[in-house]
């Protein structure tokens, strides 16, 4: 990716991330997060991760964020002054987060990574074929466990979100059945 594209996009991504944290209105926070996730998909395309970019848009910016927006509207959340901790606490959080960013950034910058640097990418790098072949050979056990995880998550979410029928509701006739 050319620097002329990277730096403006990086600024937009950081602005979106700050929007998630700083917005008082939860709906605006969620939409900022959608924008940030879309921008991350652009990076994935630039990094030759085409399938991951498509999944990012479909799964994250699509499904997960719709779930978030749905819950926000369901809870009828509005801007709440009690949403923030005290300014002193906020300043401490800002300081420690800056420290975290510096330490993480320095550590990542200085780390020698596995594999060979500056080599031409292998044939078919980032294509669905190569990724799928790896998922179904090297990571087969993890892949199969993922299906169990998703099943458990679906069942768990339904059970948790289900309204408990209270005794009063059960005695009352169902609406529309009186006549």
């Amino acid at each position, binding site marked *: *990716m050319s*620097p002329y594209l*990277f730096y403006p996009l*990086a600024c937009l*991504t*950081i602005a979106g*991330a*700050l929007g*998630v*944290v700083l917005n008082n209105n*939860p709906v605006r926070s969620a939409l900022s*997060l959608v924008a*940030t996730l879309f921008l*991350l998909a652009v*990076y*994935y395309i630039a*990094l030759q*991760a085409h399938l*991951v970019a498509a999944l990012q848009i479909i*799964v*994250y910016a699509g499904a*997960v964020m719709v779930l*978030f927006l749905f*819950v*926000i509207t369901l*809870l009828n*959340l509005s801007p*709440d002054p009690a*949403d*923030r*901790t005290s300014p002193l606490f906020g300043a401490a959080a800002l300081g*420690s*987060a*800056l420290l*975290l*960013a510096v330490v*993480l*950034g320095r550590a*990542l*910058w200085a780390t020698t990574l596995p*594999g*060979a*640097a500056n*080599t*031409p990418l*292998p044939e078919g*790098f*980032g294509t669905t074929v*190569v*990724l799928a072949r*790896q998922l179904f050979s*090297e*990571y087969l056990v993890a892949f199969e466990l993922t299906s169990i*995880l*998703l099943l458990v*998550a679906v069942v*768990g*979410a339904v059970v*948790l*979100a289900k309204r408990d029928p209270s005794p009063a509701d059960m005695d009352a006739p169902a609406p529309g059945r009186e006549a």
Partner: protein
Amino acid sequence: MVTPNHYLALSAVLFAIGSIGVVVRRNLVIIFMSVELMLNAANLAFVAVAYGRGLMSGQSIVFFVMTVAAAEAAVGLAVILAMFRNRQTVNADDIALLRW
């Protein structure tokens, strides 16, 4: 010239912003969104290293992170809904039953 290290630096910044959100905000839904932001920062680091080193494993890991994050979002939001139904609040300071 944009190197993978630039992406790693961006990922560190996004992770730090997400951690601020988790600490500063008291709304459970927004804390949750900040956690998603941190997960995405980690994903960016994985993809950047995969690209820089020609290793496809990084992209496979991102696939798994996305799956776990989707499952976590579904269950977590269901927990928040159940809690809201019982306590009429999503403020993390008001839910202190297990805290002294």
